[in-house]
């Protein structure tokens, strides 16, 4: 069997394994349930035309789904859920394997640690991208009844649709990058909670502190770069310049470093205990 074929098989196996995790399934079910709830709320709040007219942005008006140039389209809400969900699921897929001892079983079937880790990382990225994109579609689709029955599709020309699809693609991409980051951090720490605490502490404490104390360093922060990539426009009201392509390159470079550290750590680690 060729190395590429084996890698492909291993990646599929890793995806099947991840999709079997109860946490991953629950996160997807929860996301779909929230989509349903949002659909009902959007429908109910759009029944009164005067109330709808008063709102600056409302999901019943399709053009509110995505506002090019850095506006707060409702898709941003989905992005937040997806990023958090990707971090939790990515870390849990690896952490649970070390906790349950199935890492030993996995290595008995695939002794090449590099291949196993690469397949695991790839599967996390692919799954997060596909699920993320699908959930974005579900999220927006939940507002569709309100749009068709009470709202409008004004302003949704071809350029808007292109911008929407590209934004969905970027959000799915960020979801995939976060999942890979979580897998890598959990591989280093061999623990779900430790990985999540590390990620949360970095994003919510350390980066915020740095941004507050040294605003000019903000352009190096993960959150700032994500906030630049998703709308694909430079952030306003900040002390630095960061074109979106540079922000995306920086994110990929940071991730490459963390993935390399995780790979080295996994390759050299003794697997003891079940």
């Amino acid at each position: 069997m060729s190395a590429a074929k084996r890698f492909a098989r291993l990646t599929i196996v890793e995806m099947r394994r991840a999709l079997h995790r109860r946490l991953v399934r629950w996160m997807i079910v929860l996301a779909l349930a929230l989509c349903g709830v949002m659909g009902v709320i959007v429908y109910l709040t759009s029944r009164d035309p005067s109330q709808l007219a008063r709102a600056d942005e409302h999901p019943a008006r399709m053009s509110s789904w995505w506002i090019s140039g850095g506006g707060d389209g409702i898709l941003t809400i989905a992005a937040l859920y997806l990023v958090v969900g990707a971090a939790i699921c990515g870390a849990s897929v690896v952490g649970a394997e070390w906790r349950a001892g199935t890492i030993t079983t996995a290595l008995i079937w695939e002794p090449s640690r590099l291949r196993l880790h690469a397949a695991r990382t790839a599967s996390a990225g692919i799954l997060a991208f596909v699920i993320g994109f699908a959930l974005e579609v579900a999220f927006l689709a939940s507002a569709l009844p309100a749009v068709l029955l009470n709202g409008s599709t004004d302003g949704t020309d071809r350029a808007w649709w292109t911008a929407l699809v590209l934004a969905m693609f970027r959000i799915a991409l960020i979801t995939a990058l976060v999942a890979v980051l979580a897998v890598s951090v959990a591989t280093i720490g061999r623990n779900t909670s430790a990985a999540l605490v590390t990620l949360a502490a970095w994003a919510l404490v350390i980066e915020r502190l740095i941004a507050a104390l040294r605003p000019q360093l903000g352009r190096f922060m993960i959150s700032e770069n994500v906030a630049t990539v998703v709308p694909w426009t430079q952030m306003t009201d900040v002390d630095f310049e960061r074109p979106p392509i540079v922000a995306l390159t920086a994110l990929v470079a940071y991730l490459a470093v963390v993935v390399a550290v995780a790979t080295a750590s996994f390759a050299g680690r003794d697997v003891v205990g079940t």
Partner: protein
Amino acid sequence: MTAVIEVEGLRKEYRRWRGTPTVAIHGLDLTVPEGGVFGFLGPNGSGKTTTIRCLLGLVAATAGRAAVLGRPTPADLPTVMRQIGAIVETPAMFPTMTARENLELFGAIDGIGPRRVEASLAAVGLADRADEKVHKYSLGMRQRLGLAGALLKDPALLVLDEPVNGLDPAGIREIRELLRRLGAEGRTVFLSSHLLSEVEQTCDQVAIIDRGRLLLSGRVDDVLSAASRPSLLVGLDDPVAGADALRRAGLDVEPTGTLLRVALAPSQAAHVTKLLADVGLYVTELRPDTVSLEELFLDITGREEVAA
């Protein structure tokens, strides 16, 4: 005979942040020939599981050399792993999947299809419960599933660390017969177990290690006969009178429990019965004084407990 496992001067130290490293394997030499069932014995902490982990590339040896199926490990392990089935300690499977799903999942890595999965499940007696989630399985059933996973590749070498843990007596017997059958088919079963009577009944060859060093290795029969004393155990209603009679005939006699140990080759048993019958004493029991693997194990490891 070709060796399927060769270990030379294997050493494993577990380093600590502070303090001296723990030496789990201390220059182990071991050769496991092809075919049959090879028992790997040792007390708790003797280095059995660490040796197995080194062989399977799960831990990196600090020094020494190991080869499996003729290829150096861990470097060439990806090449030969297709021919190795293994379970290490309690086999861990994915608890939210059924037994069948677990095997199909792992089998998919090597392109193993459902027919082979069915055969493996049937071989370990799990066919009827293959569609239950693994988290509902008892320890014994998990062991069986681990064994099914090891058999899935139709391997030339099976490395089994305590495979009968948690099994009931009937299950132990079933697995013993399965392992014997696998060994008789020409496969090599490398079996680590603390159930010495099991090893004695199942294995063709045995190695005993302690503190990470090899103490003894060879065919079970040879090892036991070498350790046995050339003597007979004699049971009598009046052992004191019997001992006197035998001593008068110039034999070396030593009471052991309710029996007398007579320093005479088992082939000379008729001589003993005649001597005793001549003085009106009749034997109630007469057998060669053999050494069990358990006695040998305790003797050479210098441990009182039979443990692994």
